[in-house]
């Protein structure tokens, strides 16, 4: 199953990003496991300069902004597995 990670300490943007990603996955009919990554050490393992970050299938697809549902759906479709 596809793993979707939300990187961020729990600020407003991270919650918004999670909502957008969940809706996109539901709309696209993709089964995905959602993981929230809140520890700074784990977030810094990815190359990003500001949260929220979105990781799909262990690839960082966006950071520092909230993507639209359409964008997330494209990334979900492009992710392997």
């Amino acid at each position, binding site marked *: 199953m596809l793993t979707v990670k939300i990187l*961020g*300490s729990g*600020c*407003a*943007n*991270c919650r*918004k990003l999670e909502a*957008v990603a969940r809706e996109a996955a539901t709309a696209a009919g993709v089964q995905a496991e959602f993981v929230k990554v809140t520890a*700074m*050490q784990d*977030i*810094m393992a990815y*190359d*990003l*300069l*500001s*949260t*929220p970050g979105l990781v799909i299938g262990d690839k960082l697809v966006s950071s*520092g*902004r*909230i993507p*639209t*549902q359409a964008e997330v759906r494209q990334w979900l479709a492009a992710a392997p597995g």
Partner: protein
Amino acid sequence: MDFALHLLSGGAGNLAAYLAAHVLLCLLPAFFIAGALAALIPKPAITRWLGRSTAVHVSYPAAAAAGSLLAVCSCTIVPLFAGIYRKGAGLGPAITFLFFAPAGNILALAYTGSILGAEFALARFVLCLLFGIGIGLLMALLFARDDQRHDAQTDVLFATQARIGPAAVGVLLALVALLIAGTLRLWPLTATLGGVTLPLPWAEAWQAALFRWVPFDAAKGEEGVSVQGALLIALLLLIGVSAWKGLENIVEGGNRFTALALGLAAATLLVASLRFGVESAGLRIELTGRSVAVGLALWAALQQARRLELDDARAWLWESWRFSKQIFPLLVAGVFVVGVIRLLIQPEWIQTLAGRNDLQGNAVAVLFGVFMYFPTLVEVPVARMFLDLGMHPGPLLAYLMADPELSLQSMLMVAAVIGRSKTFAYVGLVALFSMVAGLLYGAWVDGIGWQALSLGLAAFAAVLAVALAWLNRRRLAALPGH
């Protein structure tokens, strides 16, 4: 019971006076500017100067610029701080960034300026910039050896290049013009261009009722709620409701409420720029130079915003709304509590502890700043309260420098990223530099000249240099092979 009511009315009065008065003309544009900075400035435009191969004279100013332009909330501050430290320019610029961000960002500057005066905002900005770079350099020197053990990674994170689009620059300039037009207290902005008297005979009774509900003491510098203020508070509530419906899902597209919320925001600024007076004949409304300037700036902002790409415009509105949603409730609660506490503090206490610009006053102010934690920007109304109660401006600036830099939250964050010994050194340096900043600014306010002031600064720098040289020699001596 009476006493509790008295306290509550103190809080409500403080809050209403804040919301009603000129504060709106500063805060509303500042939230939109903060949103524009967060959404429209591509971070690589600044972070590319923060890579590890960058020269010192570039990376420190760039770190300060990042602090002031990119970092309005912890979402950016924490990862960028860790990133600069571990994968980029190193400890020094990371510390400069961390120190400057809470004082140098647009919300803090605009808010300080409108509550405490432009001179205070300028002093806070300049001293935080100078001392932020100073503390960064000192930390880099103190921990020079540790700093060379960077992660063995390329600085690909900081290598991306980007430019700020012309439409984004246009929007930012127009918004800054709006902020200046709304807050500056200079002719021709204060000039009266004309006016009408609306035949509303109940206006006078209404004003009297408002003053009765929210009692105030002009001798203490308090402001009551005017008819205009009540109108502004009502508009603000309407903005809140329509923004909730129109901006919460702006990333997916706007709706009717989006336009309504933005229209109401513009209307609020225009109403706030008018001058209202209550006469026996009715309500007198005067057009000021400020109204014209605010109108022009709003028009310019609209023209520039139309040139933005749709995604950018939506991201801008979302970030502005998010900042408002996150910070405004905190400010409202904070200002209310400050109004209550103010009635409990005797002015003599403050005057005894920090009424003069001496070592004791500045030390007390810094200690208070370290041990108290106020949410974002609430330190500003707290400072206003202290100023009204008789605190000297010098210690007040020391408090304003120490409080946001040394909150528990920021200390924990620093400790998690750079370790405990460096955090202790950082806290010590900030406390020391804040006291010096307070002493310098206090001396300036007391009327000391430029020469004596720069002499004092030079003496402080010399003492620091000697201390550093001594530390460095001791460390070299401790190294094997020396």
